[in-house]
């Protein structure tokens, strides 16, 4: 294995080319040129769309994710949603902390009432 790798490196050195790949610069340029920064309806729309599609995907594959009851499902979804919100804020798709936390909080409220409702249904 080591022999093979050293051969590869030797050939790469022999090619005498330089690899310049600066990924952070590429991403920064992409964000600058596409001018995606927004703090209004487009950002909210993308956030809700992403969250909803993830929710549907996870809900369909409940068994593969080993999510047995409603509590586990909501705890998992809350973690997923805070990650999505964070990434969306970081890339300035929704550059407004208030709106990210607003949508997250609304989802938390829904989760609480769904847990109470499910418990009632299971017993009755």
């Amino acid at each position, binding site marked *: 294995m080591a022999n093979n790798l050293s051969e590869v490196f030797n050939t790469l050195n022999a090619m005498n080319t330089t690899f310049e790949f600066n990924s952070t610069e590429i991403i920064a340029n992409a964000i600058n040129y596409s001018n995606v920064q927004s703090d209004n309806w487009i950002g909210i729309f993308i956030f809700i769309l992403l969250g909803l599609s993830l929710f549907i995907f996870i809900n369909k594959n409940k068994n593969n994710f080993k999510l047995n009851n409603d*509590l586990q499902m*909501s*705890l998992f979804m*809350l*973690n997923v949603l*805070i990650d999505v*919100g*964070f990434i969306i*804020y*970081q890339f300035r798709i929704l550059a*407004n*902390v*208030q709106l*990210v*936390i*607003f949508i*997250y*909080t*609304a989802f*938390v*409220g829904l*989760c*609480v009432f769904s*847990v*109470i409702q499910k*418990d*009632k249904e299971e*017993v009755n």
Partner: protein
Amino acid sequence: MANNIKTIVKVFMIFFLFQISLSAILTAIPLINNDISEEDKSFILFLNDKTNFIGTDGNTLLDDFVQGMPNEGIFNDTLLNTFLGIYKIIAASIKFIIELVLDILIVPNIMMSILLYNFIGNSTILSVSGIVVNIGFYSFLYYIVFKEGIR
């Protein structure tokens, strides 16, 4: 009865996760973003006041805990001071747990403040409505869980 308690514990687990994630996002956002707008800055300060249990000295919950723990030279001192020092540490952790519990109990208050922040720019009305919502939520929980009955 066991099912009632289970439901309440589930609700408080969601509240606890909400608190942790809010604290995480509020800590991380100023670190990743150098140019926060004024609007966001005031919102972050507002939420910091709400989510961290601010004590009398203006310390947050975690600050109080960290300051309460250390006792210098605890095992090199007299026997009595060692004994009292250990009690101080136990009391600090009990105080932390009680404040954490209170912090989790007022989560409906925080949620309502966040939901209304965009529409009402007045902190007095926000806090009053938060208290009303808190009382309303717990009476609702009491009614649903104990009166209507999850048997």
